[in-house]
């Protein structure tokens, strides 16, 4: 009796916690509200199943508790019931998988007009590179990295000369324009993670990975590293500033290109 009651309280308590929890996802700042919608669908389906299972279990514990003279029913199988349950489960799974795969196909199809931005991770900070007026990022090689050339740009690649290098500073992005983020690491795995953007991806030394999103809200957002990268993992922070087009343009004027930085050195 007590046991059954406690199990009921676990199920009800979980629902109440879910409804009252002050801990919930951050207000979204990108186009990926599809992802939030898929999570909501998943919460509904799994929540109903969880409550149903635990309540049914509690009911059995109460209703069929051992009593003198009681004997269990002998019923090894019930084909119809088993088939019925299997089909219902398959439908529930499909109802979560279908929207999931649909949104995933969006997630991996980068719009043609997306601006490329490179983010470089290293222990334990972030650097950024924006294409200059030519709209193209120049070639890079990890072998070329040295104090004068911290991101390893190929010195005589014409496309790289106007690339804007941002070190130890915030990344600024214009609102409403899709961005393809090219991710690169020069030492260990990192992961560029801004909770408000929902999207994230590992950075792997030796490869370039990517994701895309469109900022939909101006403001300053905190960047964290989401892939264990050594002792400084928790303090590998940065900020992304999403601004209006005009503000962003003004900021861009104050930045230096690869060629300008090379001259100064």
């Amino acid at each position, binding site marked *: 009796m007590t046991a059954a009651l406690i199990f009921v309280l676990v199920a009800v308590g979980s629902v109440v916690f879910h409804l009252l929890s002050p801990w919930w*996802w*951050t207000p979204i700042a990108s186009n990926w509200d599809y992802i939030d919608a898929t999570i909501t669908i998943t919460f509904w389906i799994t929540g109903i199943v969880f409550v149903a299972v635990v309540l049914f279990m509690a009911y*059995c514990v109460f209703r069929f508790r051992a009593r003198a003279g009681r004997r269990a029913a002998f019923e090894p199988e019930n084909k119809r019931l088993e088939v019925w349950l299997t089909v219902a489960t398959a439908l529930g*799974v499909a109802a*979560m998988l279908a929207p999931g795969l649909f949104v995933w196909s969006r997630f991996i199809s980068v719009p043609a007009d997306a601006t490329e931005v490179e983010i470089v991770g290293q222990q334990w900070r972030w650097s950024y590179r924006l294409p200059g007026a030519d709209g193209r990022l120049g070639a890079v090689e990890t072998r070329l990295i040295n104090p004068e050339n911290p991101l390893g740009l190929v010195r005589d690649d014409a496309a790289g000369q106007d690339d804007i290098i941002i070190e130890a500073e915030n990344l600024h992005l214009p609102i409403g324009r899709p961005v393809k983020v090219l991710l690169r690491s020069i030492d260990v795995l990192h992961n560029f993670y801004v909770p408000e953007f929902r999207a994230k991806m590992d950075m*792997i030394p030796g490869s370039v990975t990517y994701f895309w999103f469109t900022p939909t809200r101006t403001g300053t957002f905190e960047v964290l590293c989401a*892939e264990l990268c050594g002792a400084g993992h928790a303090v590998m922070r940065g900020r992304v500033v999403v601004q209006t087009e005009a503000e962003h343009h003004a900021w861009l004027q104050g930045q230096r290109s690869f060629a300008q930085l090379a001259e100064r050195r």
Partner: protein
Amino acid sequence: MSELAHGTGSHLPAAEVPEMELPHPHGWWSTYVFSQDAKVIGIQYSFTALAIGSVALVLSWLMRLQLGFPGTFSFIDPQAYLQFITMHGMIMVVYLLTALFLGGFGNYLIPLMLGARDMVFPFVNMLSYWVYLLAVLVLVASFFVPGGPTGAGWTLYPPQAILSGTPGREWGIVLMLLSLCLFIVGFTMGGLNYVVTVLQARTRGMTLMRMPLTIWGIFTATVMALLAFPALFVGAVMMLLDRLLGTSFFMPTLVEMGQQLRYGGGSPILFQHLFWFFGHPEVYIVALPAFGIVSDLISTHARRNIFGYRMMVWAIVVIGALSFVVWAHHMYVSGMNPWFGFFFATTTLIIAIPTAIKVYNWLLTLWRGNIHLNTPMLFALGFIVTFVNGGLTGLFLGNVVVDVPLSDTMFVVAHFHMVMGVAPVMVIFGGIYHWYPKVTGRMLGETMGRIHFWITFLGAYAIFFPMHYLGLLGMPRRYHEIGETSFVPESAHDLNAFISVMALVVGAAQILFLFNLFWSLRRGREAGPNPWRATTLEWQTPETPPGHGNWGRELPVVYRWAYDYAVPGAADDFVPQNQKLPPPLHVARGEATA
């Protein structure tokens, strides 16, 4: 159905097996230490696993102290924190759960439940334990070497695992990899034994489809482990070469702290594929024995046949097979080819179907049962709640695009602790309360058991259920402290402190359990041969605890499946597998024999 429950077999003569086939011990050392008796080896495995598991428990307290009260404990710096989480994770997954389910329960139960005298290769079986012990000692040694154990996270991802930004880079990672290799060698010796014993040493009448689900779970998990562990072995050897000889299997060209290193051309992501090709089946290597054992606990203590036995067996086998084609769902945000996402999300969600069938069948076994809330049953019920909870959050993380915001957050930590931490541990406790009377001849203290259950179950649920919501908020995992972060409210720190307090309470309850284990050895109630009135063969041994060779002169002969509880027409509410009478069901019903 009746042919399954009451197949032919009544004509089988008793099998006489000559005694001298067994390597009998000659004195104290070969009886209790270098024993070739699977039961003794099983107890040795269990004790070693529980001992190293206690180390992991203490590590979890330390990390929770840091997370709940950051900055309070000066001896926990970021390096130490990473070392704690790494060792905690690896110990729990490999050295506790795998070793205890397969080496512990497997050794003790396989020969007994199948009506065999022992494992088929007793000497190799003994060797398996001693190599396992060596692996544990090498692992423990890494706490005492310069630089301490590795802090690379239990996933040991290169390049980070072998570069100097990670603690334990000098010795810790080398000992970790060596220890894993040893573990795999030891496991392979044991594993081959379990598989061959199940296939070759079953007593007369014990067809595969009459085996208890415990054996099906352990058997399938062992086959999987034999296929999955080699991937980890290969990965470990390659990383050792990268670390010690400067090869570049997993190491691309890289710059560490401004220095160009001499690596080049390797692939960090290759290691991840090897690791998870092992790592995902590993989840089911732990889960399938738990599925099997919990089925038997539920059936026995609900006094009712397991519902849908054939479906249960097939579900175990199908889950085992599917678990080899889902590994990259751990790598959705690893930067692998994004098209993989479609395939792995689909296979991952398909696995939910056979898994759900198992849950339904446990519930339908309870339904119209005669439920005795003994401690093993309480733990089985606790398993259902935590496993369903953790399994359902797996549907979030398996569904590729939902995983993107949640991966590497506390949501993942909460999910896998619920589903492959708390849930299997519930079954381990249930199993120990259930079989302790057979192992020692005495019952474990029931009141202590109940207190242990309720604190452990409710406490663990209070730890891991709210933790999901920290992950939803965006709190990343493997941070020694979240610190000042714009999106983290003050209340999240309070929740972290609450979780830490609960972790200490749950930990304290385990001390009660350990006390119970020793106290009941002398003071426990006498159990008799079959205290739970169970049907399976281990409860039908002539002696309790069973002697070497298990069965005296004659092996038992099996006439029925393992779940004849409350059979209509039978006087008792259970019919042991080796009992010929009552007559088969169709005779009892007065139907004509075909």
